[in-house]
């Protein structure tokens, strides 16, 4: 761990018990399994993967909002250091201010009966971070301006706003406590393309100006490619590959990452049918296959893959991959 790392996890697992029938073995959902990850301070860290791969669960575990079943999560922003699996109540209260979440759905997340000012001010009041109403107002105005909301907006109720404006309100609310770490879970997924770019640019500007660290969860790889400096790819609760963005998009090493990238529909009508087709669907996390979790869909799976689970292996500058065959495949595919 370098002293520039904000979040470090070691073998982090999050399991949810399933309330099944009365008979039979008790089942668990292995939503996140054995994840070791480092998120550098000030980075815009992307987390991608298919639905159900554990992105939200991992994000919530880093916010201490999902149970940490095994493993370690260390938070270190230079001022304080917390071991999240063993954190006490007082420290957790402080951590809640330092780590915040931006929700996906700008329509569901905002209470319809509160003014925009009260929605943004609420975290300050709940956490007791300001001493007077005047101070609260000052903080609200400051963050609202940064999120390109004006004083007129603050007096209104959220229903009067479009999707893009609502998402800016959610962002202001998440940032008003001056967090160091922000998890943005599908923060632009519900927005139209024409306004999505505006919210993404806002997030980038704020991250740079305020020196924040972002965990940006998204299923949209093109968006991730544009805004993130680092990307981690998840599959069935595991990390399959992590790398600096450029590296990952130029030289993906895991067969799943390759398939994901090639499945993005190209805007060029003459590139039809070039996607590398992946058969089947993601297996259930209650009953994951033995060996490599991707073996049921991997076109390159061999016997070893079906028996032995690959470890996340360091293969070059900040590039990690979890595949038995990555080396021979990159030679083979480079020749083809």
């Amino acid at each position, binding site marked *: 761990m370098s002293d520039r790392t904000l979040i470090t996890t070691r073998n982090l697992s999050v399991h949810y018990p399933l309330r099944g029938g009365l008979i039979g073995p008790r089942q668990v959902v292995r939503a996140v399994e054995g994840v070791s990850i480092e998120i550098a301070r000030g980075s815009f860290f992307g987390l991608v993967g*298919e639905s159900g791969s554990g992105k939200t669960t991992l994000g919530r575990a880093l916010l201490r909002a999902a149970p940490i079943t095994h493993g370690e999560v260390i938070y270190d922003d230079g001022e304080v250091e917390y071991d999240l699996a063993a954190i006490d109540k007082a420290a957790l209260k402080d951590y809640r201010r330092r780590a915040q979440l931006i929700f996906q759905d700008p329509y569901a997340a905002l209470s319809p009966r509160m003014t925009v000012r009260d929605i943004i001010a609420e975290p300050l009041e709940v956490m007791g971070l300001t001493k007077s109403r005047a101070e609260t107002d000052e903080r609200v105005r400051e963050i609202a301006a940064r999120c390109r909301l004006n004083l007129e907006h603050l007096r209104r109720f959220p229903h009067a706003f479009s999707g893009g404006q609502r998402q800016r309100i959610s962002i202001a609310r998440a940032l008003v406590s001056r967090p160091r770490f922000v998890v943005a879970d599908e923060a632009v997924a519900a927005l139209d*393309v024409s*306004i999505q770019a505006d919210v993404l*640019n806002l997030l980038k500007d704020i991250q740079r100006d305020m020196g924040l660290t972002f965990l940006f969860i998204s299923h949209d790889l*093109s968006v991730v490619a544009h805004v993130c400096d680092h990307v981690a790819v998840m599959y069935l609760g595991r990390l399959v590959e992590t790398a600096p963005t450029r590296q990952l998009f130029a030289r993906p090493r895991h067969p799943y990452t390759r398939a994901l990238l090639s499945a993005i529909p190209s805007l060029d009508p003459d590139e*039809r*049918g070039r*996607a590398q*087709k992946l058969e089947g669907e993601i297996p259930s996390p209650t009953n994951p296959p033995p060996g490599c979790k991707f073996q049921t869909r991997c076109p390159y799976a061999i016997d070893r893959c079906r028996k032995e689970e690959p470890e996340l292996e360091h293969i070059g500058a900040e590039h990690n991959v979890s595949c038995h065959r990555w080396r021979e495949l990159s030679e083979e595919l480079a020749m083809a």
Partner: protein
Amino acid sequence: MTRLLDVENLTLQFDTDEGRITAVDDVSFSIDQGQVMGLVGESGSGKSVTAKSLMKLNARNAVYGPQTKITLHLDDGPVDVMALRSAREMQVVRGGAISMIFQEPMASFAPAITIGNQMVEQLLIHTDMSKKQARELSIEMLARVGISDAAKRFNQYAFELSGGMRQRAMIAMALSTRPRLLIADEPTTALDVTIQAQVIDLMKDLVAEFGMAIIFITHDLGVIAQTADTVAVMYLGRLVEQGPVREVIRTPSHPYTRGLIAALPDLEHLDKPLTPVPGDIPSPLERPTGCVFHTRCSVAIDGLCQREVPQFTQLDDHHRVACHLAARERGAA
């Protein structure tokens, strides 16, 4: 090519508590047999209600404009859809000549009836098959769209299937009556990219095999580029540009279409900054006068675009655009 559908001057308003709102305003387009038309536009631009109009499936508070004319050209002669009244008359389009895959994933299947029973019931209404034949065809269609264990799935409920499987089952049901026109409303939006790629492939195979036409509704231009022959772009209830997919994507001519393409993150140019279309989509209660896009348009002509609705300018045989600036440039050239 043989014409399948003509939509002329489709105008559709809804009576609401807040007054009458215009959802579709004077939209015209045509589709030939076997052709795939993409329909794109922002949320609320009127894509779904346009599609539902073709089967007169809009809610009860819908009011169609008097000029609206929708003609479906079938082998037995043309059908005037607006003139269909009773449920019996409507049968020729609903689930017969036209099938629709709905945007709301669960809307296509009744929750309490098995997938198989719904498919069979639909076939019994629209064909003269026996129950046994209907059952066999349904299972065959489920298998055809890549559902393994089709006979077993036949007895399951929609909620028991994964997202990708449910989408396949919906396609199987929509196709089992062999429609001439399939309307697919955001059929892949809720799916992961790898599953989306499978479903897109499947739809292409089926077009080739069944020779039907498709209206493919999506807000994803990449999906359009991969599937459609022609594309129509909607904004706030109006068609702003339409033409062959290559022309529209390579030489977009409406400022909104251009903005939409510029706003897309491009994997080939990671350094290119993301360019939003400025401003927000106006609420349908505050429809702009003149060109509906003028409040967000960076090249609007002062005094003209705010006042006058732009008519279509023909750029070449099939590519046309509704923009004053394009008309002016065309006139000057």
